[in-house]
Each structure stands twice: as C-alpha cells, then as structure tokens.
C-alpha cells in the first residue's frame, strides 16, 4: 500500500507543522482541564442536591441531571453556539455579551454541563454507598451538615467516586475532540484536519492524533489513580504513594481475603513497615 511507503514524508510534514500541532495540543489540554474542573464542580453540586432527602432540592437537581445527560453533547454544543446568542441579539443591553461569542468558553461549558451531569450521578451513588453507620454516627454526634460532609462523609465518598470520575474525565478528553467543529477553537483535531488541506493526507496525521490522545488519556488515568491511592491512604485503607513507589519489596499476604466492597478496610498490603503503616480501619 502506498500509504506505508510514503510514511516518512507524511511525518516530515507533521514535524514541519509542529508549532501549530503543539498549539492545538495546548488547546485540547485547556479544554480538558477547564471542562473537567467545571464538570467536577457541577457534579458535586448536583450530586449533593440529588442526594438530599428534601424533594424541593432533589427533584430540580434530578431534572437537570437527566436533561444534560440525555441531550447529546453535540446538540448541547450547537444549542449553546447558535441558540443562546440569540438572547443577546434580541436584548443587546444584556451584560456578558462578549462571553456568548467566545466559542472556546462555550465548548468548555458544553463539556462541563454534559459530563458534570454524568459525574453528578457518580457523586450521588458514592454518597449513598458510604456505610449508613457513618451517617448515623454523624447524627449521633449532632454534627452540622457542612461539618459532617467535610470531615466524615465526603472523604469516604471521594475515594469511592474517583474511579468513575477518572473514567468520565477520559470521556471528556475524548469528547473534547468534537469541539473542532466550532469556529475559532483550534484544538488538536482541528489542527490535524487543517494539515490535511495542503498535503491531502489524513491517514498518518490521524494516527499521530490517536497516539497523542492515547498518551493524554493515560496521563489522566495515572493522575487519577494517584489521587485514589492518596484518598484511600488518608482513610487508612491502603499504602501511601511513597510506599507504592518505593522499591522495597511488598509483602504479599497469601490467601488474603479480597475486599468484596470498597467500604471494607483492605488488608494491609505494605506490611513490611508495621509500626508506621496505617492500622486497619483505624483512622476514620
């Protein structure tokens, strides 16, 4: 196939354009970071509301979650891009006029709303998974709502929700590629597509794009796994990051019961430093 014969040439083109490709990569990273932060804030807010026993808080939150989850990302993007600015066109005196025409911001908002709604479900589910005894204990100690959330419930839910949030963040990274259809948002996909115009080659460029996205996704996953290990360590349910990364051999306990649920304290894997390692289920 001539594809493969001409590959060195194709990559040369890509290297010559590396400035623009790097600029596109930076836009993709920004979309992923800002979109992820916005999605996380929305997820926590909606998740807490959707988990509350008060119907006046719960039902609107559920409607919002189902709405932004059920509507497709592309539809949301087009809606923000074409329908939302009409409100400002009709009422020219409204503030924040420039922001509505900022397509990058609209992309971030669309990603944040869509994946935030998915994340809200993960937050709510992990809040309900926290052992009911923990909830009862906070009531027994008559803790205020912010106090019990910050000190008792959320740290435990945080460790539970991190795997789902990690998946969702990778989804968001992958979803950010669709932002290239928006004008003035030159993310990696857009730049690679631009590269097709003068060279009329897409195959090798798309391959570069796939590899770069894959590496980005791996970095995100590793970062979130580190966060998860840290969250578990803080709950006294696992080795610290320093212990995980240390070259010291880890004692493998044969036939250790695999923790069936995450709420159960895990058997101490890094057992070669017993005095300082967290005792099982000690620090709650």
């Amino acid at each position, binding site marked *: 196939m001539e594809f493969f014969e001409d590959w060195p040439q194709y990559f040369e083109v890509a290297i010559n354009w590396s400035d623009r490709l790097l600029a596109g990569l930076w836009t993709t990273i920004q979309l992923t970071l800002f979109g992820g932060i916005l999605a996380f804030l929305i997820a926590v807010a909606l998740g807490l509301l959707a988990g509350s026993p008060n119907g006046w808080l719960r039902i609107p939150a559920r409607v919002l979650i189902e709405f932004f989850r059920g*509507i497709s990302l592309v539809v949301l993007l087009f809606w923000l891009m074409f*329908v939302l600015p009409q409100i400002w066109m009709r009422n020219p005196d409204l503030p924040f006029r420039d922001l509505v025409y900022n397509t990058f911001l609209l992309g971030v908002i669309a990603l944040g709303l869509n994946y935030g709604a998915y994340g809200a479900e993960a937050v709510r589910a992990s809040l309900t998974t926290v052992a009911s005894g923990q909830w009862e204990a906070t009531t027994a100690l008559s803790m205020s709502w912010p106090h019990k959330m910050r000190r008792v419930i959320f740290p435990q839910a945080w460790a539970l929700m991190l795997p789902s949030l990690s998946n969702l963040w990778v989804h968001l990274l992958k979803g950010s590629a669709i932002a290239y259809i928006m004008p003035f948002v030159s993310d990696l996909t857009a730049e690679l597509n631009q590269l097709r115009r003068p060279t009329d080659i897409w195959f090798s460029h798309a391959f570069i794009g796939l590899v770069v996205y894959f590496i980005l996704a791996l970095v995100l996953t590793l970062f979130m796994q580190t966060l998860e290990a840290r969250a578990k360590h803080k709950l006294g349910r696992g080795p610290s990051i320093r212990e995980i990364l240390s070259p010291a051999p880890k004692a493998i306990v044969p036939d250790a019961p695999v923790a069936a649920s995450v709420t159960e304290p895990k058997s101490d894997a890094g057992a070669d430093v017993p005095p300082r390692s967290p005792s099982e289920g000690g620090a709650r």
Partner: protein
Amino acid sequence: MMMSGIQAAEIDDPTMIDEEEVRESPFWDWDFAFDAFPDIFMAFVEVTLLVTIIGTLVAAVLGLIIAILIMLLPRPLAWCVRWLANFIRMTPIVVQLIFVFWAFVWMDALTIGIIVFGVHYATYMSEVYRAGIESVPKGQWEATTALSMSAARTWRKIVIPQALRSTVPSLGNYAISMFKDTPFLLVIGVAEMVTVAGERGAPVFRTTEVYTIAGLLFLVASYPTAVLIHRLEKRLAYAQ
C-alpha cells in the same frame, strides 16, 4: 456537512448572523417547527437508530469475542489484544471516524460509522463481559472439570449463560451512550439527525427549533430506555 477550516469560519461564525434579521424574527416559530419535524424524525429513524442498533449488535458480539480472546490466548498475545482494546477505548471516536474514513476511502460513510461505533463500544463491552465471566463462581468451573466437559461446551453451556445475565444492564447503558454519540458521525458527512436538523434550519436562518427538536428526540428516546435498564438492573440484583 464537514464544518471546518476557512469555510466554517465564514458560514458558522455566529457573529456573522445579521442581528437585525434575528431581532425581527420570532424566537420560536411553531409553523417552522412542525414543518421541519418530519425530516428530522426520518433522519432519526433512518440513520441514528439504524447506527445505534446495528452498532450495538456488532459491539455486543465483538466485545464477547475480545473478552474470550483475552482469557484464552497465550499471555503475550492476550496482552497485545488488551492494549489494542485499551488504545481504541482511550482515543476519541471523532478522530477514529476520520482515520478510518480516509483509510478506507472507497467505503460508504454510513458503513464506516457503524463499524467504528461497533468496534469502539466493543472495547467497552469486552470489559463488561470480562467482569461477568470473572463473576462466575469458581465452583462452576470445577464442576465442569469434574463432569469432564469439553472446553467449548463449558463456555457455551455453563460460563457464558451465567456471565451474560449480569452484563445486560451495562450493555444497555453502553447502547444508550452510543446512541448519544451518533451525532459525531457528522465529521464524516453522514446525514444523521443533528446534521439534517442543521441543514433544515440553515436556508431560513432558523436554528432554535431544529436543534431543540433534535435534543428533545434524544431525551425522549434515551430517558425511558435508561429507566427500563435501571429497573432491569434492580430486578437482576434482587434475583441473585
């Protein structure tokens, strides 16, 4: 409708819309909405649903094959298959669509869309199947050995029926996910619902109705399905 580059900047730039014209037209025009609905709905049935259904079937079968291959192949090969699946799973479907589109230029864009969606979600579903297969109790495997069943018979009659039971809700969720991803097909020029909606609205510069209809169709189709799957999940959990 490939909107990119120089052309896109001219056509799709929201700042290029004549604001006077917008101010004089109503925000919502019922006549136009009723006028545009049949076209959008036809595109919904003919393309979006078609891709979702065939794509799900492809993904469900291929996912099972991947899951079994990873379990049965010798380790280095299984490792290769697993990382290939990881690669497909962790890269954007938009770039994959364009990649395959230009690699197989002679193929129909709709077919490419179905294949890419099928393969992409197969990598997700293979994880679901893997978890399902691992959840089959060890005693079942031992029993098949005790009864000296052949490997094929063990998989076909004992393992897969039990593994599949718990996977149905997750597979359904991925089908919904695929359904909501179908608008990505616009990057390879397939006339799916959102593209048709945009094309329907473009000549008269009306976007409110068409995109709202498209969004509502997505909601109306995905929400009840999600509720049904959730119920199924609860029933299966209760039965076990």
